[in-house]
């Protein structure tokens, strides 16, 4: 078969399609978004009726996938690392219920925080839930391991996690496909109480999960995902996991690595394979992308064994992603110096697009707030978070999706009245709605700026779950009709909009101002598609 040039994300998507997938469930988030988008665009996926529309958030995605697994079909769940925090309740408990149809959870980490709030390491969640975790080091492995993940999931009746990192997710390379497998037919688990986590059943399920742990570790050896490669120089042994293995190889081009190397791409790691490395070397260097998970385990609490080098002793920095140079230094090899970066270079932070509706929403809000003291705008995550930067300097927080409304309630209850919550439409339906119900029940003196640009702009313009339904949702949650205002964020409506903000800021209760204008990127794309359709219709 021909090689396909795919992003790591796309390799996972193709691997899942070829493994017999029936549904992908996801909420967008960099660097995981392209997995679902690839399946949405795939003709093969369409031909196989693979469900692929976006979920409202990561928790609903995870739960829907558990439902599909319960009914016997293969389901894939995709999210960025912080999405797993949102899905965590469902995720951790899915380890208890186990899977029926193959259930694979992809969590894409973002070390160095290229586009995230933190650099948490999803392998911890895998360990926490006590399920197998796979960590491919390249695009071919991403494809192969996705297929293997479904096999493993069905063999042991367990969810399996696939951990990606930005550099693999967003890097392209050639991959070779394997045969396409049949999709599963619908079937129910033989024990119809398997998914009922009442304490009495949960205790049994937990014992079942614990009993699988040794087999999980053994699988990592059988699959050759964890493999010891011999080396003559026993002064040091190297453990390299996931993408760190590539950075190690990069420093020995066309040569064999002189040290014994344990390549790890599957967890839990068997004690046996660690010991066979440990016993033959004088010291160990641990290279892993993310938190020092393997390293910490190896050191133990007392750390009294052989010398271990890694992130915890500053051989490698604790924060930030690895790269070939950092690994080279850790190996004690000479690192060439490049040219100095000229001092006149300036940073070039991302900006809201020219003509973006958020400019006008915050322009009006800023002006309406001039008569109050500063620091009143609790915000959320989306393109509008860029309004924290000059020239707007509008917002004072961005913590996690949905936190704007709830933080505004807390701040108002501490005396910050009025407090403003700034939130986008997609974030609102992701996890802002429940907070708004709290606000209504408490009659909190907050003003919510809900920016309805009809899309999920930040991640490239995916459908927004609440499209066309926002007023009904807001009124249904109990916000009073006269305090649900709709404005058109355009420069020429500026003065009117400022007045609307002023009126609602003065109201000591919950008000929601919907700033409604389509994202200009989505608009441009829609116009282009419309144009293209017209042309094909004409020809």
């Amino acid at each position, binding site marked *: 078969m021909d090689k396909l040039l795919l992003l790591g994300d796309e390799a996972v998507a193709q691997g899942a399609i070829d493994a017999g997938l029936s549904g992908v469930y996801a909420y967008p988030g960099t660097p995981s*978004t392209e997995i679902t988008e690839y399946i949405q665009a795939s003709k093969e996926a369409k031909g196989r009726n693979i469900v692929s529309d976006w979920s409202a958030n990561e928790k609903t995605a995870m739960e829907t996938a558990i439902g599909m697994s319960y009914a016997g079909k293969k389901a894939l769940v995709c999210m960025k690392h912080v999405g797993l925090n949102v899905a965590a309740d469902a995720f951790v408990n899915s380890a208890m219920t186990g899977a029926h149809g193959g259930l694979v959870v992809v969590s894409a980490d973002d070390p160095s925080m290229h586009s995230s709030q933190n650099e948490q390491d999803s392998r911890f969640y895998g360990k926490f839930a006590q399920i197998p975790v796979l960590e491919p080091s390249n695009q071919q492995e991403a494809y192969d391991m996705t297929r293997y993940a479904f096999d493993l999931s069905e063999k042991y009746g367990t969810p399996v996690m696939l951990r990606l990192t930005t550099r693999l997710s967003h890097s392209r390379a050639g991959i070779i496909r394997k045969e396409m497998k049949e999709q599963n037919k619908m079937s129910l688990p033989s024990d119809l109480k398997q998914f009922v986590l009442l304490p009495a059943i949960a205790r049994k399920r937990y014992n079942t999960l614990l009993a699988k742990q040794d087999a999980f570790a053994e699988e990592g050896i059988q699959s050759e995902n964890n493999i010891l490669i011999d080396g003559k120089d026993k002064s040091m042994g190297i453990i390299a996991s996931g993408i760190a293995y590539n950075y190690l190889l990069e420093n020995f081009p066309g040569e064999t690595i002189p040290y014994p190397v344990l390549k790890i791409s599957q967890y839990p790691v068997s004690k046996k394979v660690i010991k066979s490395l440990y016993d033959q070397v004088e010291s160990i260097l641990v290279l892993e992308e993310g938190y020092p998970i393997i390293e910490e385990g190896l050191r133990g609490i007392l750390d009294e064994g052989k010398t271990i080098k890694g992130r915890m002793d500053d051989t490698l920095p604790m924060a930030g992603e690895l790269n070939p140079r950092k690994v080279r230094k850790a190996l004690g090899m000479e690192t*060439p110096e490049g040219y100095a970066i000229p001092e006149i270079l*300036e940073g070039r932070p991302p900006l809201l697009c020219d003509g973006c509706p958020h400019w006008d929403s915050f322009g009006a809000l800023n002006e309406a707030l001039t008569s109050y003291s500063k620091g009143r705008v609790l915000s959320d995550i989306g393109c509008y978070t*860029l309004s924290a930067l000059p020239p707007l300097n509008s917002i004072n927080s961005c913590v996690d999706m949905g936190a704007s409304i709830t933080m505004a309630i807390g701040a108002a209850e501490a005396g910050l009245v009025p407090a403003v919550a700034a939130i986008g439409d997609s974030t609102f339906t992701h996890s802002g709605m429940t907070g708004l119900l709290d606000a209504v029940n408490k009659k909190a003196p907050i003003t919510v700026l809900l920016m309805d640009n009809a899309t999920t702009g930040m991640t490239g313009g995916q459908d927004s779950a609440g499209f066309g339904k926002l007023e009904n949702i807001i009124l249904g949650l109990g916000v009073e009709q006269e305090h649900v205002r709709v404005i058109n964020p355009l420069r020429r409506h500026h003065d009117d909009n400022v007045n609307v903000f002023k009126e609602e800021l003065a109201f000591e209760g919950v008000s929601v101002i919907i700033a409604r204008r389509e994202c200009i990127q989505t608009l441009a794309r829609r116009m282009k598609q419309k144009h293209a359709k017209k042309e094909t219709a004409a020809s």
Partner: protein
Amino acid sequence: MKKDIILAGVGGQGILTIATIIGTAALSEGLQLKQAEVHGMSQRGGDVQSHLRISSDPIASDLIAEASADMIISVEPMESLRYFNMLNTETGWLVSSMNPFKNISNYPVVEDILTEIWKLPRYVTLDADKIAKEQGTVKAANIVVLGAAVPFLGLKYSSFEDAIRKIFGRKGTYLVEVNLNALKAGYDFTQEKLAKSKV
């Protein structure tokens, strides 16, 4: 054969198109390839970069090591400075457009930027906007810069032409022609510069 290339520019300037063309050309010559892209946050007028690696042997890392890039191809002059540390000091070439993209208030003086570039032992700087306009559209400036880099990439010129036909073909013959001309104009610019430096 191995070329490690840093592509630099500002979001929306078309560096991923350059990457796709080089990638397609490399594949057509049976080479291996890895290309790390930047998605998300950095696309809105912020700085963007891509690591493109092509080789006749298997490629390990998705990222290029510091001080080992064979080339920096930049569609914006200040952005080329950002990756100076990546360039191989013994062999590396820098090819950059001289046309600034000023979307920050503290953008440095353009002459100062060029002075920094011209301190390097191996560089090509060109007025890509002007050359692109002469070929029909300033939008092809990224392809002009690519053309100027072609002499250093170790691939056949015709492979780039075929790649452009393949990639722009769906968009009509006019765009194919404009981009082929832009490629040629950039290519000629560098060939002239190299010929001059030989005498």
